[in-house]
């Protein structure tokens, strides 16, 4: 299984996607913005179609459009309360725009439809290099951005008093999420990206007592689920995305049972 070149590539690519998704997902869940993560994966298609329409590279359009949408969501709803409305409206408006672009694009728009499920076994070297560069950039940015991000997420009032602009942090973070989603969705599809973003991070948030442990647990689980999914898919010959999404659900359920015994407080929450 490991001697086949396309399998090697699949392991590397899914590993990288898992690392970025695990990292970004952890902060996404701390900020309770899972919806944004999903919405941004839809948004890209409008950009891709728009770019094809004016003759630009679809990927560039996808990236730019996602970035703008991420920024817009961050700007409209920096407070938790109104965020779901902001996300919902940006999502539907950008999908509407995508539809309009599609209307003018009277040729075959192949890049539009292929996004729901990607093909991790069909990653070419160029894409792989792109992914590696993206993941390095993303990790470096997160490394430098983590401090204000955590501060603004955990103690917004205090952060504001210390001169952190909640709106800026929110915009920047969602732009980063948009970037990552745009890139990963190209490779692995909406389903797989979202599974790797939410599942491992949910477990990490549930169990870890320090930020670093949380981040690493999240990344570790994401990689483990991604590779585990590929291996099980190899054995059973069912689609990989199915296995990874199932694994991520099962691992979360197991962690729920586990964390029940962890602390007394959790127990009460489950009773209420």
């Amino acid at each position: 299984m490991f001697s086949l070149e396309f399998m090697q590539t699949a392991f590397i690519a899914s590993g990288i996607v898992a690392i970025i998704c695990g990292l970004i997902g952890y902060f996404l869940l701390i900020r309770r913005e899972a919806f944004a993560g999903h919405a941004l994966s839809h948004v890209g298609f409008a950009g891709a179609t728009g770019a094809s329409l004016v003759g630009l590279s679809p990927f560039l359009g996808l990236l730019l459009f996602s970035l703008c949408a991420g920024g817009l969501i961050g700007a409209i709803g920096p407070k938790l309360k109104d965020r779901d409305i902001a996300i919902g409206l940006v999502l539907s408006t950008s999908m509407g725009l995508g539809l309009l672009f599609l209307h003018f694009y009277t040729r075959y728009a192949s890049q539009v439809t292929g996004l729901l499920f990607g093909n991790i076994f069909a990653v070419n070297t160029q894409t792989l290099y792109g992914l590696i560069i993206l993941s390095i950039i993303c990790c470096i940015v997160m490394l430098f951005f983590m401090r204000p991000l955590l501060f603004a997420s955990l103690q917004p009032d205090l952060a504001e008093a210390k001169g952190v602009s909640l709106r800026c942090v929110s915009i920047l973070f969602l732009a980063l999420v948009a970037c990552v989603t745009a890139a990963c969705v190209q490779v692995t599809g909406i389903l797989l990206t979202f599974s790797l973003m939410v599942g491992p991070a949910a477990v990490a948030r549930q169990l870890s007592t320090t930020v670093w442990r949380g981040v690493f647990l999240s990344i570790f689980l994401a990689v483990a689920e991604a590779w585990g999914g590929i291996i099980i898919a190899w054995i059973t010959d069912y689609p990989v995305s199915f296995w990874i999404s199932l694994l991520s659900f099962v691992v979360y359920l197991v962690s729920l049972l586990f964390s029940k015994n962890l602390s007394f407080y959790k127990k009460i929450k489950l009773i209420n």
Partner: protein
Amino acid sequence: MNVIECQNLDIRLGTHLILSRLNLQIQENQFVGIFGPNGSGKTTFMKALLGIIPCSENKIKILGKTPVKARKQIGYIPQYREMESFRLKGKDFIATSIHGHKLGLPFLTKKDLYQIDNVLDQVHARDLAFTPLSEMSGGQRQRLLLAQALLGNPKLIIMDEPFSNLDPKWVKLILSLIKELQAQRKLTILLSTHDLNPLMKIMDQVICIGNQQAVLGDVDHVMTSEVLSGLYGFPIEVVKTDQHLFVTTSC
């Protein structure tokens, strides 16, 4: 040097005037209580001092600087809100505020860790360093936040209703902690609360906020039945015994 200086200050939220023509000066090493009816503008005043609510230039000076520049030297405990029910440890939680205002590598230096241990020691809460946030009681959380406010050796600490929902024991414990720290480090403390009694003998000065006015005064001058009744628009009685000073509404 004055720690806080307001000259002819107007504070507005939108077009709504909250406080007008404020003039006050607070010296070093003062424990100042802030009182006033609900919605009179206590939180707004504090936010103005912190530079969150923008005010016309040069009307507020904190330690001789503008609020924005003085930020580093102000410790702040926001009005209590339900915290995330994370399993994050106390130490990690307050560590987010160290350098949290600027970009940079998220690693704590030995000095930072030492500083955290130091402030936890100062509030006698070393044990909280390893307690998950979700397992702390209200009083423990307030102590943790107080420790956090002490990070970076502030000259001024602003606390917005730190005692709400705390029982008398914790109120007393935290108050004496604050008093102790203040004496040690010549801090200026600004503290708002609705329960005046625990503060009666501790405060050095009082700011009364009401009717768009804020007046600074000595405890003896302000804590009288007349002033308080006027402030709240309701008969309030100040009772003096040999050792105690009480405020009551039962008349």
